[in-house]
């Protein structure tokens, strides 16, 4: 959809953000505003809200609507095996290294509806590492996590995902990983058995474990520089020596304080922590 003229001002966006913080403890003040404002306007127009005062009241007083608001203003677009070459590097380089550990802990931060967590699970299974791995898939938004835990994705996406999977070096029949159920593809239980879905807010929650691989792709783009620094420090706290940090195609560690203790894998947005 497109918005011609904004009906919510920048100042009103700030009012909503401070309400969210005050009433619900959700802090979006470190988010980049252009994207956030577009999402808010989109929801405002989608739900045909008659005016800003009504909008504000609805968010403050209806918990169900607050949940919808948080779900809608955060971007939850994701794919399985998005950027196939990235997954190829995971398959050929990163995961085999981690395979030498007795136990593998992976954190998918900002996992949304879970497509990347399941992709990782497929890679681990094919490398015969799934039995000794645990994938923590977290998001601030409980609604998307519920969806992720159902391990069902739209059948209409499977052609694209299968192509991505093959480009990432997959050699199995991708359709062997799911059962078609009308318009949905239900992924095998085994893939989910090593994924723990849990809420975690990168803005306000602390480190909760130590990992050998952290993936946080296309999440930092929505944060301002200060919040990016803070979240990267959180990842650094949560990553073992010689662990790997993977970011999105257009994200980088370069400007960050922690970059001096990381070495980038050539050609990839994957950094390895030096010891």
């Amino acid at each position, binding site marked *: 959809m*497109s918005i011609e*003229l904004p009906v919510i001002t920048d100042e009103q966006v700030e009012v909503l953000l401070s309400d969210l913080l005050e009433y619900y403890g959700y802090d979006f003040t470190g988010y980049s505003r252009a994207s956030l404002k577009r999402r808010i306007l989109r929801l405002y127009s989608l739900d045909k809200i008659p005016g800003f005062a009504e909008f504000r009241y609805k968010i403050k007083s209806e918990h169900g609507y607050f949940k919808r608001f948080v779900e809608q203003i955060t971007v939850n677009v994701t794919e399985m095996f998005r950027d196939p070459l990235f997954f190829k590097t995971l398959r050929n380089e990163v995961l085999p290294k981690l395979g030498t550990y007795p136990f593998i802990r992976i954190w998918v931060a900002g996992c949304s509806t879970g497509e990347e967590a399941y992709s990782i699970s497929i890679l681990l299974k094919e490398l015969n590492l799934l039995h000794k791995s645990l994938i923590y898939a977290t998001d601030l938004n409980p609604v998307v996590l519920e969806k992720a835990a159902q391990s069902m994705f739209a059948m209409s996406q499977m052609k694209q995902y299968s192509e991505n999977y093959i480009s990432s070096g997959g050699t199995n029949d991708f359709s062997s990983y799911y059962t078609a159920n009308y318009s949905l593809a239900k992924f095998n239980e085994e893939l989910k058995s090593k994924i723990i879905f849990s809420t975690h807010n990168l803005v306000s929650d602390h480190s909760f474990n130590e990992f050998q691989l952290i993936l946080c792709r296309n999440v930092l*783009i929505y944060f301002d520089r200060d919040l990016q620094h803070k979240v990267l420090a959180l990842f650094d706290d949560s990553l073992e020596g010689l662990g790997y940090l993977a970011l999105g195609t257009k994200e980088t560690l370069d400007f960050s304080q922690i970059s001096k203790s990381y070495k980038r894998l050539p050609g990839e947005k994957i950094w390895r922590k030096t010891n």
Partner: protein
Amino acid sequence: MNKCDALIIGGSAGSLDVLLKVLPLIKPDLNFPITIVIHRKNGADSLLPELLSGRTKLLVKEIDEKEVLRPGTVYIAPSDYHTLIEQDHTFSLDYSEKINYSRPAIDATFQTAAEVYKEKLVCLLLSGSNSDGVNGLKSVKAWGGTAVIQDPQSAQVSYMPAQAAAQVKIDYILPIEDMADFINLLS
């Protein structure tokens, strides 16, 4: 016309040829930034910045997130992200749903820039086969900016500029050969 603080060019099918013709004629001491949003296939390594930088003395680069817009630079929107412009004149990238079947969507860049640069924004919509950019130009006009289109008769694919002409009060309709002069005079 107002002083120009930013020029944004959007295009789809048939627009690359226009850029290749116009860009070499743009003067190197341009005192505003040019941002180019072109629909194209996904691919981590886009050749577009390289292709265009061979045709101009201006610095041409693919946009990095949080990058500040600087005069005299040509910024290329990366594939598979929307490019947005923030009030502090920085770019931010966004991986939300496609708009008009497109990511990057020209509308997203035009609309966010419209609010930031207001009457000092010029947006130019080139050849293309869908209606991306049309709503963006409406926003540009609503915020007082200048809406320009490639003359549909000179476009390889006229649909996009023709839709804009049908739905938006366009300030200038330019054939390809007038574009460079127009841009150079914006300074």
